[in-house]
């Protein structure tokens, strides 16, 4: 369990460093194909704020079309995908990102399921353990109880006989 947790933390740290690496990257796209490719990558991560459950790349809403155009303009002007995303977040908030960022107020969102799962596993563990252990203890109790009852019976039987 501890090893699993350690691996999880490692993966988390890795993903964070990858993210900052993407931020620092300022590759200037040369060809129109490159611009399109980067713009599509960015567009797929941005929420269409009109239809809300589609990316701007998949949406037919007029505003999504305008946002696609703005994304392409900024990529062509030399913005990195992270910079374009930051531009949109500054105007629409984190809501515009289809994948919510990992920050203080989203910790419960990211780790809630994990907490729930570990809670359930802990509850199951306690339940299953307590189910087996007392029965073994009860077994020894029973032997002692039987002996006590036998003794009591023997005591009761003596005066009558």
């Amino acid at each position: 369990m501890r090893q699993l947790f350690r691996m999880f933390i490692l993966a988390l740290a890795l993903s964070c460093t990858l993210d900052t690496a993407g931020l620092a990257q300022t590759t200037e796209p040369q060809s129109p194909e490159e611009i399109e490719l980067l713009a599509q990558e960015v567009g797929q991560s941005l929420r269409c704020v009109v239809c809300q459950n589609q990316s701007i790349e998949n949406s037919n809403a007029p505003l999504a079309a305008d946002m696609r155009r703005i994304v392409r303009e900024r990529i062509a002007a030399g913005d990195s995908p992270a910079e374009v995303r930051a531009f949109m977040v500054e105007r629409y908030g984190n809501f515009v990102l289809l994948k919510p960022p990992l920050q203080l107020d989203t910790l419960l969102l990211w780790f809630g399921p994990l907490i729930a799962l570990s809670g359930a596993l802990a509850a199951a563990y306690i339940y299953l353990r307590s189910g087996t252990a007392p029965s073994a203890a009860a077994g020894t109790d029973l032997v002692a109880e039987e002996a006590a009852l036998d003794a009591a019976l023997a005591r009761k039987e003596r005066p009558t006989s």
Partner: protein
Amino acid sequence: MSEQSMNTEATKPPSGLPRWFVFLPVVTLAVIAGFFAFGLTRDPHELPSLMIDRPMPAFALDPLDNETPLLTTEDLQGEVSLINVFGSWCVACAAEHPMLMDIGESGLVRLHGVDWRDPPGVGATWLREYGNPYERIGVDSDSRLAVELGVTGAPETFLVDRTGTVRYKHIGPITPEFWRETLLPLIRELERAS
């Protein structure tokens, strides 16, 4: 003595777990239900605006026609103003329009319009038909200003103070109640604070 020990055994759950353990699933369910009750009854279209207390971004809009004065960034300096984002294609804007006419006529606040996503000439025709409540108008045919302002749909109305800082954003049509109870008091407050 053996009878007493039997009695204490009976008050405990058979498995040896603490009593409250039984209520754990119920409590968990209640917490989850609470989250859902809060989350699912909110309107997902009402997003918090990031523009509040930020200066109005500089913009360069297209003129509506030859007669209507063009709205520029400088026009928002010096006086409290309302900026209404509308479009001839927008059904809710048509519903809101009589209220805007009233606000324009009242002269209580400067009312400017941003004609959003209308092809050239279309917004002008629409305003000629329904009346023009706006002092100045700029056409934002390609959503440049709309995205700067974080607009997600029309109509949206921004309240800007004397320094050109956005102080309030309203999504959806301005109803008479909203005007009377929220917007007008806010305008008066901003006007008092010179």
